[in-house]
């Protein structure tokens, strides 16, 4: 099934043919404590401590929280607020490596997942700090624990990789096909679902063939080649394209019986269980016209951006913008000392003439954004409202359903900064809702005291 809306940006998947290469060990890593959506963990180490590779640096606080682990062995230089890809400095552990890469003795491999019960698998996945590698970095064990009243019957595996430029998932599917499919089987066991459905965009038929070939007999997976269209990899659109179910506004995939996981996450879950290995590395695409030697890199979490760029031959003199993630939803970086983290699917280096700063003009009511919005929203109207700071009206236009995919801004002939408006608008509308809720509560309390008095 095809979803309506969406766009066809130039794909630039130039790195699709490059084998994953492991990044050499660095002298220094900066490991932020908060690399996932949810409560950041509690730091377990202090300045001067010696740590081993895979040793936990923090412990989860609560259920929606995961630990982070040391990417190599060495000494803790400092625990402080350091630059973070999300823009503001955040608590991080800086490690000076000793070059030995000595493994931690506390690793606890569990062996074959087929003989383990779901609760043990879930615990191992949380302890390994596994988060969704698609970019949203939601703790995986939480997604794998749907509440009993939600009947989940389908595991959706996201191999769409619809963001232009990025090829990390593509390479993982080609080079680690067997591990991806083992991981899929493992996650199916955790969820107790009878089948899985793997969605891959039509520009990667080789990935689909590789996964199909590698699929073990006891893993009931279906493989579907999807239309190549952005944002095919958005959870809601992937589910609709694969099985025709529509996630309700404000709802989650599990409301329609689905759980969506990325292919890289499947591998991480397998390694966490089979080998007891925490998530301390990921595959990231380093690409763009302004990087000298593009790569698909297996990089340890916490590697400083400067070192990663240097490993790829450095940036060209005409570099204009460096983005973490893809060009549609990625986050521009201003500090080249930020570390790559679990959610960094790629590093995109654009030339100055590619990263043009357009002055947004007035809306000419052409409606192109309305056609492009895959969520069926009216970006033109929402943009006009947000621009006038009338945020309280945004609720009527369902601003919270905006997935910030950027399709509207991509097609807008007037170059209006629509997504920026909606990011702000969503934050303001949430504040308004919260205020209203608090006021209703206050009023109720007052009525109560008045009644008793």
């Amino acid at each position, binding site marked *: 099934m095809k979803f309506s809306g969406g766009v066809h940006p130039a794909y630039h998947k130039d790195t699709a043919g490059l084998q994953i290469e492991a990044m050499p060990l660095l002298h220094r890593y900066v490991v932020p404590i908060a690399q996932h959506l949810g409560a950041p963990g509690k730091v377990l180490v202090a300045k001067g401590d010696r740590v081993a590779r895979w040793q936990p640096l923090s412990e989860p606080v609560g259920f929606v929280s995961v630990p982070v682990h040391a990417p190599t062995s060495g000494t803790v230089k400092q625990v402080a607020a350091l630059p973070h890809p*999300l*823009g*503001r*400095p955040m608590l991080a552990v800086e490690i000076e490596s000793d070059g030995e890469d000595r493994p931690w003795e506390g690793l606890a491999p569990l062996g074959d997942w087929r003989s383990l019960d779901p609760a043990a698998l879930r615990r191992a996945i949380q302890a390994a700090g596994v988060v969704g590698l698609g970019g949203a970095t939601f703790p995986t064990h939480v997604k794998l624990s749907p509440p009993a009243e939600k009947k989940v019957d389908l595991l959706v595996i996201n191999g769409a990789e619809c963001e232009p430029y990025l090829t990390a998932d593509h390479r993982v599917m080609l080079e680690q096909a067997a591990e991806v499919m083992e991981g899929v089987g493992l996650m199916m066991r955790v969820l107790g679902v009878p089948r899985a459905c793997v969605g891959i965009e039509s520009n990667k038929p080789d990935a689909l063939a590789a996964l199909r070939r590698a699929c073990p007999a006891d893993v009931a997976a279906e493989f579907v080649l999807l239309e190549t269209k952005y944002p095919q990899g958005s959870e809601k659109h992937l589910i609709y394209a694969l099985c025709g179910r529509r996630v309700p506004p404000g709802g989650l995939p599990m409301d329609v019986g689905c759980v969506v996981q990325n292919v890289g996450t499947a591998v991480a879950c397998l390694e966490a269980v089979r080998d007891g290995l925490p998530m301390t590395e990921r595959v990231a695409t380093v690409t763009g016209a302004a990087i000298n030697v593009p790569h698909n890199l297996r990089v340890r979490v916490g590697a400083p951006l400067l070192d990663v760029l240097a490993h790829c031959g450095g940036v060209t003199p005409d570099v204009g913008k460096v983005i973490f993630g893809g060009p549609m939803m990625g986050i*521009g970086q*201003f*500090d080249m000392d930020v570390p790559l983290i679990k959610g960094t699917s790629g590093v995109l280096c654009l030339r100055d003439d590619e990263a043009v*700063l*357009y*002055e*947004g003009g007035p809306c000419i009511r052409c409606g192109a954004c309305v056609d492009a919005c895959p969520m069926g929203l009216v970006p033109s109207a929402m943009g006009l409202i*947000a*621009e006038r*700071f009338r945020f309280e009206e945004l609720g009527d236009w369902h601003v919270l359903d905006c997935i910030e995919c950027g399709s509207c801004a991509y097609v807008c002939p007037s170059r209006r*900064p629509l997504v*920026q*408006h909606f*990011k*702000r608008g969503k*934050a*303001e509308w949430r504040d308004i809702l919260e205020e209203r809720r608090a006021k209703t509560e206050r009023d109720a309390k*007052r009525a109560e005291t008045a009644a008793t008095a």
Partner: protein
Amino acid sequence: MLVPTVVLSGIGLLSGLGLALAARAFAVETDPRQDRITEALPGANCGGCGYAGCGDFAGAVVRGDAKPDGCPVCDQETRRLVASIVGLTVQDRAPQVALILCQGGDDVAAKKYRYNGLASCASAALLGGGDKACGAGCLGLGDCQRACAFGAVEMTPSGVARIIPARCTACGQCVAACPKDLIKLVPAEATIHVLCSNHDRGPAAKKACAVACLGCKKCEKSFAEDPRIKVADFLAYIDYEHAPDDPALAALCPTGSLVYRGAAAPAAERTSS
């Protein structure tokens, strides 16, 4: 000609009568004290009290939800009057003025990226805290100016906000509007201020902005004991309870973040009246 005139006037008269009767029959009882309070208030409907205008605030005072001195704009006499209408008394309060604790315009403060989105500080602040290299600095996109109902905020040519003290009523709307938390209400008679909010260590602060407080403590040390300017976390702050009043103090500051705005200052810079 006669018939339409009579008919139209008749309709007019009948509707008028109907409206008059309806106004009687469905009249909403308001507490007369609410009207008297509304009358007494400035009528600026600025929202500084946290209510949707002066009438709403008056109602809240009558219901006992708001304190009678909750209007930050009106003078002490008016506050007393409002309180007396509901049979209460109010404490005297020293007049205040808003102050923007940043002077880092484009001429002195570095930028960390080029921003070209919506001209609003709150939008810019969502992107890594804004484009200023100083994590605390004024973004100069005027959210405070838009929030001020009294036209008391201006933008300097170098792009920092500045309060015009003569117009400021200390309603606090700008304080709430600033996403960088840069605006404070200070006693109007205070003359010495630290116009910086940067908590970075000296070298880092200096790199980001030429007029940043370095936390060097020259000001603090100039007091033999009981300093009225203290440095905490690499930023000086004035103890406004015992505010110093000495134009010479400002000259001690190596960066100019400590400023004198009292009677001896040029008229345009004065904050105290």
